[in-house]
């Protein structure tokens, strides 16, 4: 997928002016957070499970080579084939080769974020193979030629009129005078159209939420059942999975299943959690005859042993973006690549370079909500701060920001001077905001005050107040 992350600032301007997007964001925000809160409240052990999940993932990452080799050996024992791919190019070539060998004309696809990373649809189309997205949200995005704006609710930025318009434009074989009275009508039409595709497909491509080392299984978690039809009906099933998806056992999977749906959609469990192990057995009446896993690195090994290793614990639940004030202001497309929100702000610079994605870790208020809801306790704000440091060290930050930071640093290294200067600034701001406790405009900060007032200090710095409290024996 071509990144527009370098144009983050322009993307944001467009998003803020997009009334339809803002409507969808405002509509969705309370329900995403509210559903998770309710599901978590109903499971008293949830907080402890987060620790267990974090520890399992850390254990896996420390032994990732062992678990991948074990998993791979077990896939092959059960009749599957593993294709190890270092780069996106390798993975695209592997998928294409399997499809060509199968003589595929149509390929159905379950929802998979790694497939967006590979831009596999474009690659297949270029070689005369028709890819069909079957997740409802991904299906309409394919019709509209848009990328997903969210990792689990890819089309929530669209309103009902958008669906109707796209269906009328694309399903031209259906009567023009048909009525879309309610959401159900949209769903029914999509179900019918996609059924034809499921039955015609020669190959089905899914992602994987987990790979189980013990059994050589891949696991998908869905609500629609499209992933299951994708991997059950065609003759060939291809799983796309990145290396950090492996976990040791089915018991480890149980912990992640308890965390995943609650964090993602606020369900206790998603509707379909399916473990696939190898190809159809001799006496089976259905299921694919070939089972392939395309195992993809695409930059992840470069994070191991660095301060970003913790990001590889991510189970792609989307809780971080669902609770992010920045995400819900600018929407997912602004981030400009596959992964939006806080997890994207950490992962994208690692996968496409901080030179291209440096804006993303800067677009954070550091409110910390993302870390507090992460089911595997990834310290997302800390990792974003590491990217800011790297960006600064590599002289990628803009000159204005660099000189301001340099001025701040000069003061910060001289504590007495720093306290004097901040004391003076606090008194000055307090005087400016007298009576109201805020100011509507400030010299040199017009960009900031254009959209909101600056709350002013009460006239004393924290240091000064702390020292006074100590003197008065209140501490």
């Amino acid at each position, binding site marked *: 997928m071509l990144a527009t992350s370098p144009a983050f600032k322009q993307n944001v301007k467009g998003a803020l002016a997009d009334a339809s997007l803002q409507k969808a964001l405002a*509509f969705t925000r309370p329900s995403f957070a509210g559903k998770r809160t309710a599901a978590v409240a109903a499971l*008293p*052990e949830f907080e402890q499970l987060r620790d267990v999940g974090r520890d*399992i993932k850390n254990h896996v990452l*420390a*032994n*990732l*080579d062992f678990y*991948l*080799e074990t998993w*791979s050996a077990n896939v092959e*024992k*059960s*009749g599957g084939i593993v294709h190890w791919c*270092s780069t996106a190019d390798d993975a695209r070539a592997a998928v294409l080769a399997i499809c060509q060998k199968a003589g595929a004309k149509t390929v159905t696809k379950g929802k998979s974020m790694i497939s967006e990373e590979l831009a596999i649809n474009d690659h297949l189309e270029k070689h005369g193979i028709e890819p069909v997205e079957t997740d409802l*949200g991904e299906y*309409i995005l394919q019709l509209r030629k848009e990328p997903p704006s969210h990792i689990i*609710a890819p089309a929530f930025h*669209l309103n*009902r009129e958008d669906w109707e318009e796209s269906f009328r434009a694309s399903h031209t074989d259906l009567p023009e005078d048909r009525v879309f009275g309610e*959401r159900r009508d949209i*769903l029914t039409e999509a*179900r019918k159209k*996609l*059924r034809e595709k*499921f039955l015609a497909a020669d190959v089905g491509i899914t992602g994987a939420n987990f790979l189980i*080392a*013990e*059994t050589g299984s891949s696991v998908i978690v869905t609500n*629609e059942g499209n992933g*299951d*039809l994708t991997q*059950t009906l065609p003759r060939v099933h291809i799983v796309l999975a990145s*290396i950090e998806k492996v976990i*040791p*056992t089915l*018991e*480890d999977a*149980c*912990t992640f*299943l*308890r965390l995943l749906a609650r964090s993602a*959609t606020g369900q*206790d469990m998603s*509707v*379909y*959690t*399916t*473990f696939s*192990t*190898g190809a159809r*057995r*001799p006496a*089976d009446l*259905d*299921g694919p005859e070939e089972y392939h896993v395309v*195992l993809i*690195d695409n930059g992840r090994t470069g*994070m191991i*042993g660095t301060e970003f290793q913790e990001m590889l614990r991510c189970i792609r639940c989307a809780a971080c973006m669902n609770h992010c004030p920045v995400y819900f202001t600018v929407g997912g497309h602004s981030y400009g690549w596959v992964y939006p929100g806080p997890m994207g702000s950490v992962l994208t610079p690692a996968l496409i370079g901080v030179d291209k994605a440096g804006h993303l870790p800067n677009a954070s208020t550091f409110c910390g909500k993302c870390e507090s809801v992460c089911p595997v306790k990834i310290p997302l704000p800390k990792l974003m701060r590491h990217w800011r440091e790297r960006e600064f060290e590599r002289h990628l930050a803009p000159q204005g920001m660099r000189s301001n930071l340099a001025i701040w640093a000069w003061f910060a290294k001289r504590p007495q001077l720093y306290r004097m200067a901040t004391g003076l600034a606090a008194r000055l701001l307090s005087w400016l905001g007298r009576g109201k406790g805020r100011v509507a405009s400030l010299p040199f900060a017009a960009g900031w005050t254009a959209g909101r007032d600056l709350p002013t200090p009460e006239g004393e710095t924290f240091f000064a107040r702390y020292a006074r409290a100590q003197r008065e024996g209140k501490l």
Partner: protein
Amino acid sequence: MSKENILNAIRRGLKRGPLPDDQAMGLRARLAGHPRHLIPARSRVSRPEQIALFIRNIEKEFGSVARVADFAAIPDAVAAYLAARNLPTDFAIAPHPELADIPWDTRPLLQRRPGRAQPSDLVSLQHGYAAIAETGTLMLPAAPERPTTLNLLSDTFLVVLRASRVVGAYEEAWDLLRAESPTQPGGGFMPRNVMLVTGPSRSADIESTLELGAHGPRRLHVLLVDDDPAALG
């Protein structure tokens, strides 16, 4: 070789070579022992309460349950469910011996077609292997007598399940499968496919609003056979 490249890149990051034998032994022991982690207390209740929890959770997820006294009562229960919803009385049915033994001739109008599901099937009837009370989840491992397509292609999905096969937590269901599943080609116990199903198919992709029956069944109905005296509260 991509495989060696990836493994070496991981080892470089971890600042070590291949795992020393003693450490690999420890990990193999963890795999062989597959230890359980924290299991939520909600399913740690008496048998009757576990069954009640299972039913509550199925209903919470938009499924339904009919308790029947024994297998002989199933034809009536199926006929009543289909008739109440004006559904067709012909259906695809799992070719499982337990289902074949049901006295279907008491309801001659019910037309059964044993085998996998066809895309035109409106109703399917599956054999429930086990179920998990914790979240109202059915465990449906693929087998010649339990084809996967039955779970997916129909509009109305019926499942016959023995109450004695309802367990508390996911881990207990995996224990059943580990103990009972026939050895597969290659030596493992995992069937080609194991589906954990919690309610009927759904999507919230259109305006973040839930609609049932996205690609899979719109209705899920469990016929729960009370074969477990301890579960009758």
